[in-house]
């Protein structure tokens, strides 16, 4: 048994939420830079220049890259040889979020009830936690801070198996087209294929938080990611929806086994500041 203190996790979460609100993850920054160099549309290029400037100011002056500092999503993979000590894991994660948002002067955007009592909880908690048990004796944390301008443009569809690849493509491209300027393009798009109604959405979220230098390990899905990216960038949405070659920076697909009668497809739309970070705790 390996002991890991939940306080260590709390501290990590506190740091991670701040890190990604002031600094672009390296993968996204590189994709933006590549897009900036290749954008042929002058207004689009100008916007990508300004986004670069925005990122510089954010890091230097410690001002959040975007004012919507998001809802925190935490994927935590716990090795089955790990014994968690020093208190409640759930409380430690929530406290890490609250401390990080307070310390970083990040915006608190969570309301306690979605419908009847939309009252701000004032500390950006609760965050959403997806735990899973894996082999080994370490813990892997993946944290995202998700803005809702883009989240609101996400979709889920229960396709019929016969709709196949064409149906998936249509769903993804329609969602991107429909998101347009509302999602602060250039976007990052996470696609979840398979599982059940709920699980497809979780896969899509997971896909938005994946390292964008990686493709899906399965060559057929990797090919689909590439084709979708090329087709999405022909939609001429462009930076901020004002036209151009750069509409989508990356499309990540995650898939899972599903039922003989189903083909769930979830499309989680994310923006040019897809804030994600992963760390391993040993």
């Amino acid at each position: 048994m390996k002991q890991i203190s939940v306080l260590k996790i709390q501290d990590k979460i506190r740091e991670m939420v701040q890190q990604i609100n002031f600094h672009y993850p390296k993968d996204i920054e590189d994709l933006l830079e590549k897009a900036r160099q290749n954008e042929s549309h002058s207004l689009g290029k100008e916007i990508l220049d300004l986004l670069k400037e925005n990122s510089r100011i954010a890091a230097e002056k410690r001002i959040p890259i975007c004012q919507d500092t998001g809802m925190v999503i935490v994927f935590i993979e716990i090795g089955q040889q790990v014994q968690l000590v020093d208190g409640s894991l759930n409380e430690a994660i929530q406290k890490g979020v609250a401390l990080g948002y307070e310390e970083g002067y990040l915006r608190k955007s969570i309301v306690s009830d979605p419908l009847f009592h939309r009252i701000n909880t004032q500390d950006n908690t609760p965050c959403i936690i997806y735990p899973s048990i894996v082999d080994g004796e370490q813990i892997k944390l993946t944290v995202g801070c998700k803005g809702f301008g883009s989240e609101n443009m996400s979709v889920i569809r229960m396709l019929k198996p016969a709709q196949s690849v064409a149906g998936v493509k249509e769903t993804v491209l329609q969602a991107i087209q429909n998101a347009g300027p509302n999602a602060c393009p250039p976007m990052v798009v996470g696609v979840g294929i398979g599982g059940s109604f709920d699980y497809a959405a979780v896969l899509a979220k997971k896909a938005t938080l994946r390292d964008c230098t990686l493709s899906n390990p399965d060559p057929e899905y990797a090919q689909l990611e590439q084709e979708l990216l090329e087709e999405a960038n022909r939609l001429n949405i462009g930076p901020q929806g004002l036209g151009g070659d750069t509409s989508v920076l990356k499309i990540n697909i995650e898939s899972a086994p599903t039922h003989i009668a189903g083909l769930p497809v979830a499309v989680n739309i994310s923006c040019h500041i897809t804030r994600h970070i992963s760390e391993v705790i040993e």
Partner: protein
Amino acid sequence: MKITLPLTKETCMKLHAGDSLQLSGVIYTARDAAHKRLAEMIEKKEKLPFDLENSCIYYVGPTPTPPNAIVGSAGPTTSMRMDAYAPLLYDLGVSATIGKGYRTPQVKEAIIRNHACYLICIGGAGALLSQSIKKAECIAFEDLKAEAIYRYEVEDFPCVVAMDAYGKSVYE
């Protein structure tokens, strides 16, 4: 093009979708919750926190202001969520709203009817945009925190005309 606020209807008539503007002067912030309250006050015929005539409303919910700073990160939020209220505000004299993204046909009609306009600035560039805000003062609904109404004094605040007084949109 440099624009000194307040933005009059005459100036609005000279703007065209796609024009890049740098605004200087006073703008007021308001997003979801503030709009709801403004609409309630209008219905009850109460005095509003600021004069709507030729005013410019910025859809923003900034991050908290750290000590010794003027404002936090302050980029635009999605305009569509304010579309239910926008026609009413345009009809009462607002000459421009600033946000990001599409508007409904009802907002378009209100813009044409009132010789007003809709401006956008870069979504997700809150750090950059905050640099053009030279003074910020909370003037109403302080309890709403990020959603309170602030009076901003801006200098060369960069935006683009997304819909002009003739209803022409940069997204079409």
